[in-house]
């Protein structure tokens, strides 16, 4: 090869490498950027739509939701006041031996544990934060503000040394948390043994968790535990180092250095309370404050000092030992049983023909499915809610009653060695008595309502508020036993809180219960709600255990719990009985909610919707499994672990059956064309409608805030929807990643929807994040401030204060107006099923009524400012580890009465409009594509809004099937199909592909989204005299141009390379031929 050719080949190679690298990086990078366009725009706060006034048009008031505050500073001040108010009313005192508290202003105290200088402010993940926020107030500041003095030497030692005691073992998402406190011997003697600050030794007992991972428990969780500092691997028990500190404090107390030992449990998830009454630790007072939020420490300090009085009541049962909670036998990653124990992968099933099938072969059913979807099924896990309805106090109080009454099968159950503090429990610095408890019946809106009143008197010597809890006992009958209906001994049916009562003062409070709340769900015989005949008991109690004791005493005046050493319990005069003479399986078998909300033209017949979510539906899926039943506690309650460390291993193993496999396949398969009629597209019937025209009827006054809404089923909606084109509809439903898209043809603005079960998440948002917020529009000087962190939702629930929660919701609404976040991926209303739940800080309680009611109040409050909530996660996302690709199983009664109940209350009572669907599958089918969204949430509860999926890439389902089931929007924009602005799932859908049913579902989805948005503060500033301009960010054009340019450069490079290859090959051939010729000549010469 000649020199020239050599140089050409070399140059071609260099060019080929360079252009290949450029082409690869730019085209793949560009493709990734375009697929994540929404995320990038949000991150850089790039405007994608703008509301413009039409020139010359009349100026009209188009602010439908107005703020009652004047500035960001006012919003923040308000928010921080709510943090303190919620903490003040929600922090719960559970032990106060010999009136150890209050400490009094002027007390001199010593704060122990590394957590005293770095307490748990909030959890982690999409609704939390990794570190303390700039607005966080530390405990020392708070204590001093309350008039107390803090041991500086001890505080400073912890501050200087906290770096040696890191408590987070890995990154924020799915973080591993350890305890890693300083051992007693590591604390300098002079700092800890300081009688000058001896009024109290206050031990801060903190725990944290967050999204993506549950807490470490007995059941393995098999987490990295860098310091190996947990007792039996249990994150929710005292660690050896913590034990050493408490024992050390006890010694110093005995020696007279400290007058009292106070433990502050700073954790959304309660630590087991076996230490509370253990004389080895000498704890005089114990209070729970959840996670603090920005300024909650002020409230804690004020409560300890006695400047404020406790009025919180526990929103969860505080267990003495978590292993005695039967839920935990089927919780945690080990509960997600792998089907094939040998290989550890969920990989195969034997069919009747003996042919092995695998989930991966299922994945290949849809050729061209993204590899990500195929991978999702490769590693699936399963958990069975074996406990049924018996979560928290529903278990403890029911089994307690059965032991006291001697029910057969109650078994060996020691209530007082199981429960430290029952649900609803809480102490005060004063005392209250109840009297004059009355009950009456009335008709209200066509329904029977029971009304109650009780007089509450402050019999102590300090002012305080009292929480009054109303419980109901339904009859547990032979019919129930025969038909598998479970009934708890008591369930909370209403509550209220007095105003602050001075000593000696009284207040008569009222509560009410609809007769429908007396019904139970009969999934077996009637397959609907029934109001069963029998005796019903209502009681007011100070907590769930008090309520059960009242009823026990009422039913049998001679009943005493001698076995437990308690006598003299129960107040018969605080119980009212109601007898239902005949079982009614008709009245509560229909719902009119959808009809009343104009989303249906008929009543809904309520019947079973979750048969396939019950593992017993599938023959052969389990081996002899029985749900926990009250008729046989001993036989069905299988605790997973005993006190001596032996795992009893009673997790329910699930085996894949052929039928499950086929159901799964059907759920993952794109629907076939049905060739039914498509809706109308791109048609105007005389009048052009904009979205704002569908908001409300004009009433002639200039005030838009009091207009009557146009109902969902008004014919104008059809005319508006007819105007949209197929392309607009497809694009609109292809992108729901924390927004809803703008539609310029109907002047729909973009909405911003963000995460935040505990308020708009502060990590990612300042008040100036979004252009539509008042902070940005008014150029507020404090716009760059972060939004407030509130205490965990368990503390909100523990306030038991409906009025406070509605005001709290209004504050969220104010933050919405000022920040520009229109919708919130919150309320978090999954259950505190287990204390180890990673996201329990986002959820409220183990009790669905308390949770639903609190959530309803917050939702109502937020709605007054046009802020809409997505209740999440629908349903049964009660566990974090392996939630992605996980399958959860429960029976119909449990789902309806426990896990769906908070949704029902928040929708029916609070007007909540939207949901976020859960990541796990319910049964074998992704929660987002289950029919219950349409058939229960909409048809039964009357939900008017829309459903967004959880982060789409993590959901294990078919999005088009999801549309048919009622999931309207994907939380994601995954577009690798090459079709512009179209999610991958839609790539086979066209106007002529024959998918009429899907198209109609798309129209319904669009309708629901538009209906929600038009009644939100996203429409502020939108009127008949404005237009919405959709903007294409400049960077998108730049990326597209760069990709196009580099494509041509690559082609040119390949042409050059091709030429070099051809020349080189020809040269080699020529040389070879020359060589042969030469050789031939030489041979002939010789």
């Amino acid at each position: 090869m000649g020199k020239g050719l050599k140089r050409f080949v070399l140059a071609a190679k260099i060019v080929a490498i360079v252009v290949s690298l450029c082409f690869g990086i730019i085209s793949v990078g560009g493709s990734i950027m375009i697929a994540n366009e929404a995320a990038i725009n949000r991150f850089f706060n790039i405007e994608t739509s703008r509301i413009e006034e039409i020139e010359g048009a009349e100026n009209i008031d188009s602010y439908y939701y107005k703020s009652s505050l004047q500035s960001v500073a006012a919003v923040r001040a308000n928010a921080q006041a709510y943090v303190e108010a919620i903490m003040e009313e929600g922090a719960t005192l559970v032990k106060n031996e010999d009136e150890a508290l209050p400490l009094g202003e002027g007390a001199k105290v010593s704060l122990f544990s590394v957590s005293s200088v770095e307490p748990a402010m909030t959890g982690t993940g999409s609704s939390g934060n990794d570190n303390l926020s700039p607005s966080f107030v530390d405990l020392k500041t708070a204590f001093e503000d309350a008039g107390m003095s803090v041991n500086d030497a001890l505080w400073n030692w912890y501050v200087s040394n906290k770096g040696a005691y890191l408590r987070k073992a890995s990154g924020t998402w799915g973080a591993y948390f350890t305890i890693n406190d300083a051992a007693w011997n590591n604390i300098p003697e002079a700092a800890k043994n300081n009688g000058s600050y001896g009024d109290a030794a206050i031990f801060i007992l903190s725990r944290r968790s967050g999204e993506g991972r549950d807490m470490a428990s007995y059941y393995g969780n098999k987490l990295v535990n860098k310091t190996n500092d947990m007792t039996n691997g249990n994150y929710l028990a005292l660690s050896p180092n913590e034990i050493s500190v408490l024992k050390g404090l006890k010694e110093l107390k005995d020696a007279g250095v400290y007058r009292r030992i106070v433990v502050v449990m700073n954790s959304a998830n309660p630590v087991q309370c076996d230490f509370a009454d253990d004389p080895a630790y000498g704890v005089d007072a114990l209070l729970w404050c959840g996670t603090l939020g920005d300024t909650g420490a002020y409230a804690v300090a004020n409560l300890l000092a006695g400047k404020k009085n406790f009025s919180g009541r526990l929103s969860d049962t505080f267990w003495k030992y978590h292993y005695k909670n039967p839920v935990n036998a089927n919780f945690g990653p080990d509960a997600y049983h792998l089907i094939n124990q040998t290989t550890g992968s969920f990989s195969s099933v034997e069919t009747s023909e003996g042919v092995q099938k695998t989930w991966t072969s299922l994945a290949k059913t849809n050729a061209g499915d993204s590899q990500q979807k195929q991978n999702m099924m490769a590693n699936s896990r399963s958990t069975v809610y074996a406990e049924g309805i018996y979560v928290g106090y529903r278990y403890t109080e029911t089994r307690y009653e059965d032991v006291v009454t001697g029910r057969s099968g109650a078994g060996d159950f020691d209530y007082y060695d199981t429960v430290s503090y029952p649900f609803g429990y809480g102490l005060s610095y004063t005392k209250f008595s109840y009297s004059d408890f009355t009950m009456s019946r009335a008709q209200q809106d066509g329904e029977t309502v029971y009304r109650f009143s009780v007089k509450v008197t402050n019999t102590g010597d300090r002012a305080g508020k009292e929480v009054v809890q109303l419980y109901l006992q339904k009859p547990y009958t032979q019919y129930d036993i025969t038909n598998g209906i479970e009934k708890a001994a008591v369930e909370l049916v209403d509550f209220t809180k007095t105003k602050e009562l001075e000593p000696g003062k009284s207040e008569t409070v009222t509560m009410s219960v609809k007769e429908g709340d007396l019904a139970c769900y009969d999934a077996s015989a009637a397959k609907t709600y029934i109001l069963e005949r029998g005796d019903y008991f209502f009681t007011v109690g100070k907590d769930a255990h008090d309520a059960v004791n009242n009823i026990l005493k009422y039913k049998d005046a001679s009943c005493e719990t001698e076995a437990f050493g308690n006598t003299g319990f129960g107040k018969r005069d605080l119980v009212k009985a109601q007898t239902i003479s005949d079982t009614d399986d008709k009245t509560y078998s229909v719902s009119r909610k959808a009809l009343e909300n104009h989303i249906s033209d008929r009543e809904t017949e309520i019947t079973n919707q979750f048969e396939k979510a019950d593992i017993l539906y599938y023959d052969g899926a389990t081996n002899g499994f029985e749900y926990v039943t009250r008729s046989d506690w001993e036989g069905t309650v299988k605790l997973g672990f005993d006190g001596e460390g032996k795992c009893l291993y009673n997790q329910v193993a699930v085996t894949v059956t052929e039928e499950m496999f086929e159901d799964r396949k059907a759920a993952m398969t794109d629907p076939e064309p049905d060739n039914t009629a498509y809706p109308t597209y791109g048609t105007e019937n005389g009048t052009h409608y904009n979205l704002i025209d569908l908001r409300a009827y004009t009433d002639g006054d200039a005030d838009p805030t009091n207009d009557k809404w146009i109902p969902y089923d008004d014919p104008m909606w059809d005319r508006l929807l007819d105007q949209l084109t197929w392309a607009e509809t497809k694009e609109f439903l292809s992108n729901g990643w924390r927004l809803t898209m703008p539609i310029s043809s109907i002047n729909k603005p973009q909405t911003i929807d963000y995460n935040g079960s505990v308020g708009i998440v502060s990590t990612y948002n300042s008040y100036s994040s979004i252009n539509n917020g008042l902070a940005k529009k008014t150029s507020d000087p404090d716009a760059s401030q972060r939004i407030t962190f509130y205490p965990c939702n368990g503390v909100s629930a523990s306030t038991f204060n409906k009025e406070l929660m509605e005001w709290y919701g209004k504050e969220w609404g104010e933050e919405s107006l000022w920040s520009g976040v229109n919708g919130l991926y919150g309320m978090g209303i999954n259950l505190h099923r287990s204390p180890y739940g990673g996201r329990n800080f986002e959820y409220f309680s183990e009790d669905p009524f308390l949770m639903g009611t609190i959530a309803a109040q917050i939702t109502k409050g937020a709605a007054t400012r046009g802020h809409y909530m997505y209740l999440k996660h629908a349903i049964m996302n009660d566990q974090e580890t392996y939630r992605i690709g996980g399958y959860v199983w429960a029976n119909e009664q449990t789902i309806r009465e426990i896990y769906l109940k908070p949704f029902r209350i928040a929708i029916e009572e609070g007007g909540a409009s939207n949901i976020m669907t859960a990541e796990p599958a319910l049964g074998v089918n992704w929660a987002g594509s289950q029919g219950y969204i349409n058939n229960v949430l909409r048809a039964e509860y009357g939900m008017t809004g829309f459903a967004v999926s959880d982060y789409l890439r993590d959901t294990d389902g078919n999005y088009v099937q999801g549309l048919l089931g009622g999931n309207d929007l994907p939380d994601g924009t995954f577009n690798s199909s090459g079709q512009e602005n179209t999610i991958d799932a839609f790539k086979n859908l066209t106007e002529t592909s024959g998918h009429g049913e899907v198209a109609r579902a798309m129209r319904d989805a669009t309708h629901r989204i538009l209906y929600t948005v038009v009644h939100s503060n996203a429409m502020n500033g939108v009127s008949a005299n404005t237009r919405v301009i959709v903007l294409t960010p400049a960077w998108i054009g730049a990326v597209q141009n760069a990709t196009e340019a580099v494509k041509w450069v690559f082609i040119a490079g390949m042409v050059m390379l091709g030429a070099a290859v051809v020349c080189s090959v020809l040269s080699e051939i020529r040389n070879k031929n020359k060589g042969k010729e030469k050789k031939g000549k030489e041979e002939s010469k010789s």
Partner: protein
Amino acid sequence: MRKFFKTRAVGFYLLIAAALLALAADFVYFHFYHSDAQLVRYYTASAFAVPFIAVAASAVLALFRVTERWAGLVFFGLELCAFMLFVNGTYMYLSSAFYSGFNMDAVLALSPGFLATAVLYVVILIAGAVLTFMRMRKKERKGEN
């Protein structure tokens, strides 16, 4: 055969080493992306398949004088394709890993399977780029090219 190997240059043996490394990387990718629960959803079958094509194609090209000078570049080009497919399939894993910020904790928590695969790909691509300019055959006496 002996004559064949006697005439091979360092580039040829480097190509063999790079090919073996590519196969090893593929194995690592397959293993971790099937066993690590964090990574399973990001596995891309085409990213697994293309390196086999790269190894086979470059091996065939390296055997013949006429085509041997292109073996390294073909290896590089196909491995680059595989790497881009890997990136396209895996980037959402990084998005999740750094969801709450790019910090040392998040870096240390990255899956070893991901890190191993990524590092191996980078090494293979560097090797491929170098191979592009290396001879497969020893320089022969005057008159040969």
